[in-house]
Each structure stands twice: as structure tokens, then as C-alpha cells.
């Protein structure tokens, strides 16, 4: 069953220096209980795409066209107030840096209880605090830590608190934007395992935003690869990893350092384009070793191919 359907979504940033299309004609679906990872380099539009779903686009970012259908309703036509109600209760969000999202002057329990009360999920402050404490336990933090202030916790524990806050109202969808980028590798592995077990136990869908395709490979059901504001390939994780169709996906996999593969110093030639003046035709063609004539002139259209979608002239 489809939980989320994004249809031909375009997001622009309009600045004094001109208009920049940060997300171009993006279409995606996410099933109930499914884990979809969006992978791409900095500036590929992956965070912009994800943040537009719960209405968290920062100005001057703006959805210019397209629809975001979540549980049958179009989120792009909702008011700020309606979106606020959906955030937290139906869509949980975890950000990269937990320190910027926690108030340093208030206890963790206080902040969690406030969010619970806002969504009228508890009848009293005491009940809300009990819920907060149970939520902490579910992410592996002793429940009595509701009395702690953010600075009394380590970076990994703070991220666990953010996850507890994002899932305590049992959302249908959790959006995690680079949740482990600021953490050490062992803490990262533990947080990823926590997210995976929460997804399975709660039956929620997860959208993970990451620049690390290896991190995505270990936990996802599906993966969407973004390059220069466009989704270039989307499909089941095993198929994409073992047999990437788009040359960019292939290059991304090859360029990722990995302990369990032969040592290689392969790098993708060149740099990602400036989105104010993207290359004509396929946006990846100047860096693509398989580029041929049509790539320079014509934009490739997304093509369905054996359960996958790929936007590349090699596939018609």
C-alpha cells in the first residue's frame, strides 16, 4: 500500500542572483513499512526534496509545481497549521545536528512533554512525562533521564533523544536527514540499528537522506539516487547495488571507500554542475564515460525497466 506519492515535484530557490531549480520533476512512491533512502552528493537536492514533504522548506525555497500525496491528501495544498499538526504525529523528522534542535535551557522531558501536549496525546503533564520516559526507554536511554538537560548527554545520546521525540507519537513516516553524519562510526552503527529495529517494530516507513551509499545499502528496501536536482535512478536496493543501470550510480558505488572490497582509488572525474546553469541534455554527460551524441542535446526521460526507474539515454 502506498503511503506517500510524490508527483512531478519542482522546487525553486529564487534569489537576487537568479532562479535555481533545486529539485526537478521528482516522482517517487513509498509504501507502508518501507525504507527508502535518497542518496546523492551535497547540493544534489536530496535534503530539499525530503524537507518539502513535512513543509519544512526554508525560504527562499518554494514548491513551484507538483503534488505530495500523503495518506490520500495533498500536502502541498495544506496550510501551515495543518502541516504542523501532521508533523510529529504522522510524520517524524530527525536532523543531522541534535544540538540545534534541542533547547539547552530546558530538560529533555519538558521538551518532549510539550510536544506530546501540543498534539493532545496526553491529558496531563504527568501523563505526558510518563510517555516521554517510555519513549526514551524505547531508544535505549534510561527513562529517568527525562530530568537531564541536553548538555548532560553525549552526541549519540542526544541523537537518540531526537529519535525518541520523532517517533513517540507513532508516526507513519520518519524522515531522517543525515542522522549520523556528526557521529563516530560505532555510535553511527548503533543508531542505524536502532532506526532499523524501530521501523520494523512500529511498522513505519522511513526516508533516509544520506551521502553515503554504503550506509543506505545496509538498511534500505529501496534507494533513489539524485544528481544535480534530478532522480536519476530508483529501485530495490539489491538490484541497484549489484547491477546499477545509471552510469552515475555505478560511479558513485565505485568511488565509495569500502573495507570489504578490493582497494581502489577510483574517483568520479570533474565536479557536480552549478545549478544556476546546468549542462544541456543529460546533466551528468560531461562526467560520464558512456556519454554519446544524444546525451549532449536531449534530456533523458525517466524510463521504467524491470521494476526500476532510470533516466539515461542508454535505456531509450
Amino acid at each position: 500500500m502506498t503511503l506517500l506519492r510524490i508527483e512531478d515535484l519542482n522546487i525553486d530557490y529564487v534569489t537576487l542572483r537568479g532562479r535555481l531549480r533545486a529539485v526537478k520533476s521528482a516522482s517517487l512512491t513509498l509504501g507502508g513499512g518501507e525504507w527508502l533512502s535518497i542518496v546523492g552528493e551535497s547540493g544534489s537536492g536530496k535534503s530539499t526534496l525530503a524537507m518539502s514533504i513535512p513543509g519544512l522548506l526554508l525560504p527562499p525555497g518554494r514548491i513551484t509545481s507538483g503534488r505530495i500525496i500523503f495518506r490520500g491528501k495533498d500536502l502541498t495544498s495544506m496550510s501551515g497549521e495543518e502541516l504542523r499538526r501532521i508533523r510529529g504525529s504522522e510524520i517524524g523528522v530527525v536532523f543531522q545536528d541534535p544540538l540545534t534542535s534541542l533547547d539547552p535551557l530546558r530538560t529533555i522531558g519538558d521538551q518532549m512533554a510539550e510536544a506530546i501536549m501540543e498534539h493532545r496525546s496526553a491529558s496531563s503533564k504527568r501523563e505526558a512525562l510518563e510517555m516521554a520516559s517510555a519513549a526514551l526507554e524505547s531508544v535505549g536511554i534510561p527513562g529517568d533521564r527525562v530530568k537531564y538537560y541536553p548538555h548532560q548527554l553525549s552526541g549519540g545520546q542526544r541523537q537518540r533523544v531526537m529519535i525518541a521525540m520523532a517517533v513517540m507519537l507513532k508516526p507513519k513516516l520518519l524522515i531522517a536527514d543525515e542522522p549520523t553524519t556528526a557521529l563516530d562510526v560505532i555510535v553511527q552503527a548503533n543508531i542505524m540499528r536502532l532506526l532499523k529495529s524501530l521501523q520494523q517494530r512500529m511498522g513505519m516507513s522511513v526516508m533516509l537522506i544520506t551521502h553515503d551509499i554504503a550506509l543506505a545499502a545496509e538498511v534500505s528496501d529501496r534507494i533513489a539516487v539524485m544528481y544535480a536536482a534530478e532522480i536519476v535512478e530508483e529501485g530495490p536496493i539489491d538490484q541497484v547495488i549489484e547491477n546499477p543501470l545509471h552510469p552515475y550510480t555505478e560511479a558513485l558505488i565505485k568511488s565509495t571507500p569500502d573495507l570489504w572490497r578490493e582497494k581502489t582509488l577510483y574517483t568520479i572525474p570533474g565536479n557536480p554542475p552549478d545549478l544556476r546553469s546546468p549542462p544541456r541534455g543529460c546533466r551528468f554527460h560531461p562526467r560520464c564515460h558512456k556519454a554519446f551524441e544524444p546525451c549532449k542535446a536531449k534530456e533523458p526521460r525517466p524510463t521504467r525497466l524491470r521494476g526500476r526507474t532510470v533516466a539515461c539515454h542508454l535505456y531509450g
Partner: protein
Amino acid sequence: MALLEVEDLKKYFIQGDLVDRLLRRVRTVKAVDGVTFKLGKGETLALVGESGSGKTTTGKLVLRLLEPTGGRIVFDGVDITRMKEGELRKLRPRMQMIYQDPYASLNPRMEVGRAIAEPLVVHGRASWSEARREALEMLERVGLTPAKDFYRRRPIQLSGGQRQRVVIARAMILKPNLLVADEPVSMIDVSMRTSILKLLLDFKKEYNMSMIMITHDLAVARLVAERVAVMYLGKIVEMGPTEDILHNPSHPYTEALIAAAPTIVPRARKPRLRIKGEIADPSRIPSGCRFHPRCPYSDSSKCIEKEPQLRGDSRIVACHYPLTR
């Protein structure tokens, strides 16, 4: 011959102000607690561990950017442990450091070309016009072309990867013998990391430079380092040739680091070891083996009571019950 010899290096920080001192409430943070290693000419050693392992402090100590509390640092045959700043200044161009955050290491108002040229002038190696010419060559070398265009840019006009290239150019223009690279790619997209590391490897080869690569990422260590030293709470717990350590870890902490590294390989035969919790506060170092509270194999009182010593020759490990394969 070794370019750098470090013996029983220690750095203790005293935490607390005057009032704390009067009330005898000061705490000693043992950031580096007896580190010994040698680094050959043209060799790269990776210092691997989590935040709080003391790897960055070790890097700063060997360059004398911090005063050591104890131990000995010998650079190219000269004991620099207690060397005065005036004398050190003459050695500084031969030992350089690059940091994790390339934005923080560059003056936001200075043209990046000038930032690259500056060390040559500061150390009296060249006039501004000569330094400018060399900086332009350096920009070319690190792939920031057209060099004349990049010379005039400010850090904010560059991407993270481009900034790190500037930082590398600035460190390399002095042709150092030793480079300490502190997490140089951890803030850069995974797909761009290899190109930055390749650049460092090219310079290392050209200058026969020795390198200390500080990283929490074993995959990065593997690409650049001949040897790896795994650090935990201020001490080296395991050291040896990189591939050997990765295939055959002896210390449970090394195994945990390997198990935690994400992989793209489906059904990779990863070690399954998982450890809980986080590294302890270095002002409250656990008794015995400092890793024992997190170690899944520690079930004897020996680990709690007795500190394991580093043992071995080319492969050394500090563990009462090293893993065997």
C-alpha cells in the same frame, strides 16, 4: 631511518579554576597517556579511534602545537620535546598540519591564492611576487583551474572539497617532511573523499613525505596508510600493518571498529561483534583495561584489575585475551 620517534608521550589537562583547586576538586584529564611509535621516512601511519581517543591531541603534540606533559619527541634525529619556540620556528615549515574543517582553517576575507602564498613569505622563502607564481602553480596542481580565477576567490565561493584542496595546497607549498592530517575528509561527501586522499598520496610520493592520518574511518586509513595504530582513551591498543590488522584484528575494540564500518557489499562477511555505550570520560578512566566496560569478552577480574601492556613485534596489542583466528 625514522623521521619521527615518539616515546611514552603524555598530555594531561587540568580541569578546574582557582576555587576548584582550593577545594581540591580539580580533575586530571588524561588525553594522551603513554603513546609510543616510530614513523619512517615516506611512511604513513593512521591513528584510528573515536572522538576522545586522544588521536588529535597526539597529532598536535608531535608537532609541538601543544606542550607535552611527559615523554619524548624526536624529529629527524633532534629531540624537540622541550625545544624553545624560537628554535621550533625553524623546524615549523618542515612539519605541517591540516584540519577537519577547511572553512575554519581559512581566513574568510583573504583571497585563497594569497592564503596559499603566505607561508612562503612568512618563512622568508620567497618574495610576494615569487610566492604568487608558486601559489598559481600549486592551484593548478590541486586541480583548482583556471588557477588565475581561483587565486582571487574567497573561501565562501568554494565547495567543501575545493576548500580542502586550498588547505592542502597551503600546507604543501612548503614541501614539508611531515604532514599531520586530522580527519581531512570527514566533512566531505563520501564520493569526493578518494580524490582528496589521492592528492595527498601524490604529494607524499613526490616529497617522500611522512604522514600521520588521523581518522575514525578505517576505510580512509586503508586507502592511505601502510600501518594503523588504534587508539582508545589516550593509549594505543593495537598497531600493525594495515591490511593485516583489517583482516586479523587482535583487539576487540579494533574488531568493533571494523564491524561498525558500513559496506556496500551484500552479505559481506563482517565480524558480528557489537559494542554498546560510548567512550568513557578521559577524566574518569576505567580501572584495569580501559576498554573493559564496553568489551563483550571481558568476563574476568583480570581485565578489571590489571592494565594490559602492549606486546608483540611488528604487530602489537594490549589485551589480556587477544582474538585469535
